[in-house]
């Protein structure tokens, strides 16, 4: 088996002294799609934030290896340049900053990091047009400021479009389905599926099973109170949908007793 892209080992993390992640272990190999599901407040978004390097979280125990390197040692922008991409639950608006310009700056940071020449305006536009076709994106979105005045669906599509351009090794999708109607959900999921390859991996974080009808995971992990309490194949998600989180919560209680 190929070397893992991501190895999370006994990760403990919290905010201002409050423990949120209480020992998470998870290994992701190239070509795999993992889903982390869990009720509100179980630590799903914290996991995404810690992996991406958001400020304000204390790592109290455990560690994360990304392609064999200590991920937690890298600044957030270094993680991004190394190929870690976070599709935000709430993409941030940057008024007055043109989306195309922003994305070109981001891509060129990645290219510089890998010793590749920066793309000039023409080369970049060629790449963008190709990726836009893939995402079925209207090109006026790129003429607007980053996420400014975008609808919920447009924001999520723009995130996945950025992912397409930046071509990450590890994509973390944080509740990408939240706030999407069924049509938008389909489009976004199709985009994500097209980006799947044998070299990269996806970590899909979601509350609801419905996203997993479109992005089919190889593995499903159930996160409850900062711990992965159950792992399984894609059928686990369906079972959760049918029986609710209570089923797991009771099971966990039973196993603790």
């Amino acid at each position, binding site marked *: 088996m190929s070397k893992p892209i991501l190895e999370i080992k006994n990760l403990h993390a919290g905010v201002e002294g409050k423990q949120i992640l209480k020992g998470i272990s998870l290994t992701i190999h190239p070509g795999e799609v993992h889903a982390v599901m869990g009720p509100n407040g179980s630590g799903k978004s914290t996991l995404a934030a810690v992996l991406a*390097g958001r*400020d*304000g979280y204390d790592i109290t125990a455990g560690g994360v290896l990304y392609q064999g390197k200590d991920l937690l040692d890298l600044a957030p922008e270094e993680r991004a340049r190394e190929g870690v991409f976070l599709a935000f639950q709430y993409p941030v608006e940057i008024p007055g900053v043109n989306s195309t310009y922003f994305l070109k700056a981001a891509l060129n940071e990645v290219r510089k990091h890998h010793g590749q020449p920066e793309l000039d305006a023409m080369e970049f536009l060629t790449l963008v047009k190709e990726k836009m076709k893939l995402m079925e994106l209207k090109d006026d979105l790129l003429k607007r400021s980053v996420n400014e005045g975008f609808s919920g669906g447009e924001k999520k599509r723009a995130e996945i479009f950025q992912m397409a351009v930046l071509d990450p090794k590890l994509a973390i999708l944080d509740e990408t389905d939240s706030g999407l109607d069924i049509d938008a959900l389909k489009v976004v999921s199709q985009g994500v599926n097209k980006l799947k390859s044998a070299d990269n991996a996806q970590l899909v974080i979601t509350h609801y099973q419905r996203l997993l009808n479109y992005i089919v995971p190889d593995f499903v992990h159930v996160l409850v109170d900062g711990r992965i309490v159950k792992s399984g194949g894609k059928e686990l998600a369906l079972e959760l949908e049918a029986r609710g989180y209570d089923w797991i919560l009771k099971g966990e209680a039973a196993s603790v007793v």
Partner: protein
Amino acid sequence: MSTATETIEDLVKTEYKYGFVTDVETESAPPGLSEDTIRMISRKKNEPEWLTEWRLKSYRHWLTLTEPAWQKAHHAKIDYQAICYFSQPKPKKDAPKSLDEVDPKLLETYEKLGIPLRERGRLAGVAVDAIFDSVSVGTTFRKQLAEKGVIFCSFTEAVHEHPELVKKYLGSVVPYTDNFYAALNSAVFTDGSFCYIPKDVRCPMELSTYFRINAANTGQFERTLIVADDASHVSYLEGCTAPMRDENQLHAAVVELVAMEGAEIKYSTVQNWYPGDENGKGGIYNFVTKRGLCKGRNSKITWTQVETGSAITWKYPSCILQGDNSVGEFYSVAVTNNYQQADTGTKMVHIGKNTRSTIISKGISAGHGQNSYRGLVKIQKSATHARNFSQCDSMLIGSKCGAHTFPYIEVKNTTASVEHEASTSKIGEDQIFYCNQRGIATQDAVNLIVNGFCKEVFKELPMEFAVEAQKLLGVSLEGSVG
């Protein structure tokens, strides 16, 4: 405090690049202000009797006034007797007749500042009048401008060569009775720029004045007068720098613009006077009166300012919209860092019918900086169907700075429409993290965000100066694509 905030604060702590002093011999009047000082200045400049009298009238009026105290900015009391009111680089023989005779050290100074004073500047297509301390050092491109009938010279020369124009318009927009600093300026102004664009002429190049305070304990009191005759067009830029000194220095300028029927004046400022050090010591007090009169029908005046310097900036470039259908615009970016204070904005006075005004103000505060927008929109009874749109946005970087907005609106005509929008935002750690997560380092992220915030104003600046302004804010050039 989080690391992101610390980094932001490091970033705004960039040092002042233009703080050097040029070692030239200067001829200065002793400090202090009296009728004798004024007569001395007038004599030095060989001025006609009427101007000396006008100065003295202004001085006598000034004596009756007290320093205004209504602005948000605070400063120690200014001792007007401790200021030197006249300083000029010592002439070798007489005044320089051409640029070749200008002290090479002065030219070097302007080169350091990036001003294309020599005719090399032809490439840049910008005609420059440079004011060093109190006197005009030389005006480039005069010949090419003269072919079109454009007059662009120092104020002193204008007094001698075009007395009828100066006499007609001096004080016609900002009378010496206007305010404390305008009265002081009228009494002691030493030089400045004068510009006249004849009827139907589109000025073939950007005109520019560069101001520099060099001598210590010197006040700079320049006066700019621009008259655009019927259906003419001119774009004008001023830039300002000063050496780093521990004492505060006073800069009290007056700028008057007159636009006749169908004329258009675009006046852009990049103000980068020395702001004082990080503890608030030293820096320029920039107390300036700028006003434009849209005298004729269909005339238009646009003020664009990027204010990054000065310990205290206190100015309100304004438009009197007298002609029917005339248009006034004000676009402003003001940055305050460390202990800088800015109280700036505009006045739009609507008198003519169908007059329109637009105000876009962007204030950025960092460190302990205090940034106030103060603006007046006044619609007089005669101004039927006048329209105004105002937008005032403030951005805060860090937690010790402040942003304030004081909009005043007076409407005396019921057909008028006045809109005001305001917002205050903090440079978001969310925004920075979002950029970081896309591979963009924090410094570049801040530049990107600030630049985006100011975009509406930068796009109003002439191209060359937009670039300078963006650099000045420490931002990388944006927008080569899209």
